[in-house]
């Protein structure tokens, strides 16, 4: 392999490695923060749940972007559409289910 190609290959490797390291670091932060908050017990339950929820969702996005490599590029378009489609179905199913069952619980308990 020519020195030029070797160099760009090494660069590409470092770029990819940086991606995984970034993902790991972000995920670690997004994990440590809610854990410490709950351990310390400083927030009210409602506030804590909101923080946990938002940070959890953010971490899922981090996983999808840095570990599953699904971004807005053309090559990843199919996976993106699939995740959006599955995600919307999941939201309809879960939100619908929770609405129904909590409504039933409220009326029957």
């Amino acid at each position, binding site marked *: 392999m020519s020195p030029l190609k070797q160099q760009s290959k090494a660069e590409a490797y470092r770029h990819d490695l940086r991606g995984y390291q970034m993902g790991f670091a972000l995920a670690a932060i997004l994990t440590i923060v809610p854990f410490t908050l709950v351990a310390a017990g400083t927030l009210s339950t409602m506030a804590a749940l909101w923080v946990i929820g938002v940070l959890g969702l953010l971490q899922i996005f981090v996983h999808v972007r840095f570990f599953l490599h699904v971004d807005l590029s053309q090559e990843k378009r*199919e996976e993106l559409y699939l995740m959006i489609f*599955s995600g919307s*179905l999941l939201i*309809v*199913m879960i939100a*619908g*289910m929770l*609405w*129904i*069952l909590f*409504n*039933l619980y409220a*009326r*029957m308990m």
Partner: protein
Amino acid sequence: MSQAMWSAVFGRLNLGSLDFLKGILYPSMNDMILSGAAWLVIVGAVVTLALLTRYRLWGPLWSKWLVSVDHKRIGVMYIAVALVMLLRGTIEGVLMKVQQADGLHGGFLSANHFGQLFSTHGTIMIFFMAMPFLTGLINIVVPLQIGARDVRFPMLNSFSLGLTVAGAMLVMISLVFGEFSTGGWTGYPPYTEASFQPGAGPDYWIWSLALTGLGSTLTGINFVVTILKERAPGMTLMRMPLFTWNAFCTSVLMVFAMPPLTVATMMLAADRYLGFHFFTNALGGNMMNYANLFWLFGHPEVYILILPAFGVFAEVISTFSGKRLYGYHTLVIATMAIGFLSFGVWLHHFFTMGQEANVNAVFGIATMLIGIPTGIKIYDWMATMYLGRIRFSVPMVYSLAFMVLFVIGGLTGIILANPPVDFEVHNTLFLVAHFHNMLIPGTLFGMLAGYTYWFPKVFGFRLNDRWGYAAAFCWIVGFILAFMPLYPLGLMGMTRRTVSYTNPAYQPWLVVAGLGGLIVTLALASMVMQILVSVRDREKTRDIGGDPWNARTLEWATPSPVPAYNFPVIPHIHALDPFAVAKEAGFGYQEPVSYSDIHLPGDTWVGIITAVFGTALGFGLVWYMWWLAILSLAVLAVTLVARGLLGDRHSVTISAAEVRRQYQAWLEEVRTVTPVTRALEWDPRNHGVAANEYFQEAAE
């Protein structure tokens, strides 16, 4: 043998589980029917095995069919399972009709027997008749319509078939050993919990569904990838035939709708086997969650059942009107809309469960919205027929009956979508009439139309028309008589799933319904006759040219029956309805510029091993024969891992010279066939080549 040793080997099987003894021990009409069914299964199995041995068919059965990964063979096997289960499911339905016609003073069936009947009837018709039928049609047709050589994952295809066969075997075995569930095809707890039905019944139901459900999920994945990745060059998504579009949406639904069923049934299994409390009465179970989870599956499931039928009708109506399909783009969008919306309406199956009116209203409105894209489809098909030159072939007769009868059923669906109205008619015969009105003129007629339409492509000869019309007539009249009376009965308040009743006002209607059931039996008999006569007369109706109906889509541009590799050369596609366009320009039977070697996947034992050991696994789990369950699971795991590590060791290569030889021999044969005009479509002179006269397009 001590009790402990007996349970270790035979689980909870005992003499009382042997159904074929019941009629001898308790000679009542009810028990004689129960035993009779058991004997039918035993004798049927023995006779089948004997015939196979007598006519030395084991060899070809094994090498040509059971180990095949060819999508066309797998499709035929799916349809064979479906037709056999149609026989059993219909007989069960007719038996229930006769019981209810006689039910004013009790009838002749016990309540328990009736409970098993409506449970097996629903389970069989949905999971082991309709699903295999549509899966079979999709298997045969879609790769041909998109110009592919096979599905993307042929071995997985065989595995899925094995799983469905295993589920079907389990349901058949339940006639011989023990009882089936009396909890309906929906299996609602707590009635299906161990505290109310500790026996084998609900377990048969759970495991047969688990097996076939996994098969359907994998089939869905197989077809989504096939349709997205295996299309011939030039076949863009918007040049795919409508049957393929409907198959695509069906497959997406399979991937996303089967998981809720898995969750619901596995939770029920955990309750029954491990003492969990997902749905129990005591200790914090929530049985309302079951209805929610089941119908999250159940509603998209009914769209899985209907969309392929819509696809068949689109093809059939366009072909037998001699016209391009009207409103292709709208039809595609309508199909996708139906698919997506089908996930948002599931609560309409339990409006009466107790949630507040606002919740009901939202889902009621969503349900009514689905009527819109469906209506659009009906209008588009009518517009396709308008100013076309219509031929009343058997598939067309089914399509016309569908258009009238399905719309009636759809309208009753809109009635049911209104929560206050549903409170009156929920779980009455009105509901039963509605869903049979959708499933029979919709799904069943679609499957039978597709069966008749594509039969010559698969087997190389046409089905007998006379018996085809007889069957269609009997199905149509039989359905109308059997189910239309159920609407007024439901409005009068007769509940569903009742073995007997005391209100004499119901009886006249039920007698008419019983008569309808008997006519449906005649329809079945006609179908059997049709196969026998068609096989006997197959030389007279041979399809040599591959195009008996002067159709428009790519699958008709092949010999009949289709060779294993489908196309000698993968075609380049330049238009929608490519075959019709080519024929009009005089290029119906083209000669490839050059040939190349064709590589096909090899045979596999995975499917047959799955069928055998999947059945054994289910049986072991039902009867608590843990050694059998573990052994079967181990065999299945080893088979799949071995296949993974060893790969496909028997792949086949067909040389370019051989492909050329076969194809040119076919073209030679085609040259000897006289093309026929539309008027001679039913004539024995139709050997599959369409005359130029056909191509006068009517005003669009």
